[in-house]
């Protein structure tokens, strides 16, 4: 995260597309890993799928050197990953909560 922020700061200063998109992608990756830990694949499949699709597409756009799109998709990937993690955690809590008599 610290590296990502440093890269973001650097990118903001430099206005460099590759650096910026890489930073967002790293953030998205971190959030996706967090969602995975929360079992988002099982408990938040919609958000989990979206996050992964956007992440892959973002990387693809980097390959095409379309950094603007790459940043846009990386941000979306990150957003979905965060939602996936939150929803998964909620669902886990509900499942673990004792049922009313």
């Amino acid at each position, binding site marked *: 995260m610290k590296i990502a922020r440093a890269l973001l700061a650097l990118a903001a200063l430099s206005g460099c597309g590759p650096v910026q998109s890489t930073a967002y992608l790293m953030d998205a990756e971190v959030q996706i890993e967090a969602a995975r830990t929360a079992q988002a694949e099982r408990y938040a*499949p*919609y*958000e*989990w*799928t*979206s996050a992964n*699709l*956007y992440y892959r*597409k973002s990387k693809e756009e980097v390959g095409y050197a*379309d950094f603007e*799109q790459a940043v*846009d*998709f990386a941000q*979306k990937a990150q957003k979905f990953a965060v939602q996936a993690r939150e929803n998964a955690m909620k669902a886990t809590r509900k499942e673990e909560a004792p049922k*009313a008599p």
Partner: protein
Amino acid sequence: MTRALLFASLLAASACVTGQQVRAKAEVIKSDIERARRSGAMRCAPRELATAEANLDFAQGELAEGTAARGDEHIRDAEAAIKKAIVLSKDCGPKQVTIKDTPVVVKIETTDKDGDGILDKDDKCPNLPGPPENGGCPLEAPKDKDGDGILDNVDKCVDTPEDKDGWQDEDGCPEPDNDNDGVLDGADKCPNEPGPIENIGCPIRDRDGDGINDDKDQCPNEAEDKDGFQDEDGCPDLDNDKDGLPDIQDECPMEAGPAELKGCPDRDKDGLPDKVDACPDQPGPPEEKGCPKKYSLVVVTKDKIEIKKQIKFATGSAKIVGAESQTILSEVSQALRDNPQIKKIRIEGHTDSVGNDAFNLKLSQNRANSVMSALIKLNVDPGRMEAVGYGETQPIASNATAAGKAENRRTEFNIIEQ
């Protein structure tokens, strides 16, 4: 060259058609996505729905970038995904499950029939509203065992009714003696103010704060002055000796005296108040501390200036003779000066019975006049004197003896005003 141009225009034309087609397909997929969502795809086909939406987004992004071919690939992926999602969502609604003959309805419980804010699935009394602390069931209405109108849940004395006398009526407990003075309220004239039973439960006050309670204070609104004079009655005594001078100005507040002597008495009227008068019953000048001046031939008493020896006159005449007579007159004149309180004296001339009465009367008058003249000469104010001849009418001894006659022949200086 012509062939090359033709190829390029064909390629461009084909690309334009692809872009339009992609946009049209995108619109169809968009509506399919909405339909699938309505059918519950979010629940029954979340992955397919997500794939369709994401690919639609990608396609639109590619179209915006002018890469329709890549956009078309995403459209196809989206199309496949949304079709799958629609199929999976067809049978997505909640199901009713029947076990043997008893139908068991599986519902997602979100109802709150009694509207108490607790969902029916968590509500112990789903048809009766009640607070959460009671599991959604209504609280039992509190009773009022003693019937005093104060419900038992707030009544500190549930079995004893409140007396409702305006004193702490909220606690539900009766207070038979509100002021706790030992006099029950029924007999207490002042039930909310403590007071002794002898005052019917009312407090004994001391309105003027003089330390004498009102029941014994003859002047309850005027504070006693406590100056040692009739301090028990509670009334202030502003002029204890009633001499007309208020005590605060009176140097002798317990003894009446004139204002010129600051309210202090002067029994001998020598102008010196008794309290500083060494001889309060004998007039005397201040230099003698109020005691009579020690004269050799004269003594000033309360009512007269006594002379120890008699003034001598020539026989049958009013002429004063002898040095001793002059000394006596001189001391009398001095005594009058030393005692200004003596306002007036009467110089009395008396004779013995020798000779006829008229002569004696005239002689005595002449002799009294002669003495008065002599005193005037000695600077005594004539207004302080009068001369009266009594002749032989007021003997003080027997005229039968020579000694008695000598005593009767006399001059007296009686004080008649002071």
